[in-house]
């Protein structure tokens, strides 16, 4: 098959807390969104795929390699942006990316500097490449993180919540950048924003309590809520909130006379997360 990422029945615990329990999913070339509320296990999964953590049990294959035995091969083809990465205080953008390039085994200075300049240009930071990282805005800093993840043209790119804390305009630029990156690579992007997934992911995986509760296209995720979203003048359903027009938007099992409305990806996601409650209410 063309699956570049295969995760099969993987579990990982920290002490007594179980971060992943029997997680299975696959991903291939293109952008796959990992959705899940805080604590769902997204970061744990990312660190596992980045070969920073080892699974307690289960099987993982990345680009055809096994992280237990072929860690180096995977690392040579990997770009990784951790959640909330920290950078060396006094480094300039160029110095930081250059430092990571050395850790990525780029030895020849001339070729390495060309590559550093290329990735800095790719994320649109060429103008500030000589500026200290600590003087940059949060959005620019995030782009520095993406730039280092692109060094050496990796086949697998892992981005842990790259859009968290960005304003709407920065988000748009980010989505354009990330979908460009995903044209010929496997990109896994974790987020708790359904708009990110609807806007740029070919596939979505929803995590809940360390398990995969959905895998499919964003359209299929939207389909989860088909026929289960309606508008009414009174509060109803399992999840319900007042819209701008004064009506209530309800998710759950609609009454017979309900005015159904087309669902969004968000509706499908919410329904998955609160699915047990919805089923109980039927």
């Amino acid at each position, binding site marked *: 098959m063309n699956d570049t990422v295969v995760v099969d029945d993987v579990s990982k615990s920290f002490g007594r807390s179980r971060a992943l329990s029997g997680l299975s999913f696959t991903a291939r070339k293109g952008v796959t969104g990992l959705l899940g509320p805080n604590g769902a296990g997204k970061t744990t999964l990312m660190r596992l795929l980045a070969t*920073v953590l080892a699974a307690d049990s289960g099987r993982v294959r990345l680009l055809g390699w096994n992280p237990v035995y072929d860690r180096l091969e995977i690392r040579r083809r990997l770009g990784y942006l951790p959640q909330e990465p*920290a950078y*060396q205080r006094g480094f300039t953008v160029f110095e930081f990316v250059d430092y990571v390039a050395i*850790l990525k085994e780029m030895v020849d200075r001339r070729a390495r500097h060309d590559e550093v300049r290329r990735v800095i240009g790719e994320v649109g930071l060429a103008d500030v490449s000589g500026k200290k990282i600590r003087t940059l805005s949060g959005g620019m800093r995030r782009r520095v993180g993406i730039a280092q993840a692109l060094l050496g043209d990796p086949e697998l790119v892992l981005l842990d919540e790259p859009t968290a804390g960005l304003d709407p305009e920065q988000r748009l630029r980010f989505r354009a950048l990330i979908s460009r990156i995903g044209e010929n690579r496997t990109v896994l992007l974790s987020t708790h924003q359904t708009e990110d997934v609807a806007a740029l992911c070919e596939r979505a995986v929803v995590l809940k309590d360390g398990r995969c509760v959905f895998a499919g296209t964003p359209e299929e995720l939207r389909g989860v809520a088909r026929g289960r979203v309606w508008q009414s003048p009174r509060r109803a359903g399992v999840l319900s909130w007042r819209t701008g027009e004064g009506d209530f938007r309800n998710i759950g099992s609609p009454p017979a006379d309900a005015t159904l409305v087309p669902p969004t990806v968000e509706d499908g996601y919410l329904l998955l997360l609160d699915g047990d409650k919805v089923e109980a209410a039927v």
Partner: protein
Amino acid sequence: MSTAWHMDDELAADYARGRTGPTLAASVEAHLLACAACRGKLAPEVPRARLDRVWDEITAAVDAPRPTSFERLLRVLGVPEHTARLLAVTSSLKPAWIAAGAVALLFAALASGETSRFGTLVFLAVAPILPVAGVVLAYGRGADPAHEIAFAAPYSVVRLTLLRAAAVLGVCVALALVIGLAVLGDGGLMAVWLLPALALTTLTLALAGWLDPLMSGGAVAALWFAGFAAVAVYEVRPVLFGSVGQLASLAVFAVSAFVIFIRRREFS
């Protein structure tokens, strides 16, 4: 600033032939970086290949990091450029830390003067601990804020750690030798703490496989000072620096190095 003037043909020709002085050349280059028109003007004056090479060198010089003096020293000593860069970002190899280490040693050396009851013991107690502190700083989480990124990179974490530890040890030994000789002026005395320093540093690294580096360094330092005090109470010239001590140091070094070797996968 770059649009206040442009190169005329004469200046372009002079610059292309290298007839401008260094000051004027620098200002021309600064302008060329910002002005495509003048770059175009220069093109017919210079053979294409040479222009490309010059241009490469200019852009490389402009945004590439300037090597620190420490980095240049390493290069002189034959360390490859990329390795020198990895070492130069180590916090305990920064000038501020080296200066602090030198001051600590200096005080230890001064306290070890003839008037002190314990003679040179203060210096002998402090000198081997300095590289331990340096290694803790070089290896601790705080030392590399981007450690998560570094972990996921192919460069071996063990190799990086040992490289930095070796550099820290080298700098500390050089410092202690210079200060010890200058203040205490005893060459034989200078040799006896080298092996303990190596042993304590390696032990710190080996323990860091289980403990937080700070804990590991603290434990080693506590152990060292306790042992030192115990021995110093009974003997003026402690066994620690006699043949027994040297052999023990060698044993600690060998065991620690072996532990690091067999646990090298766990490090990353």
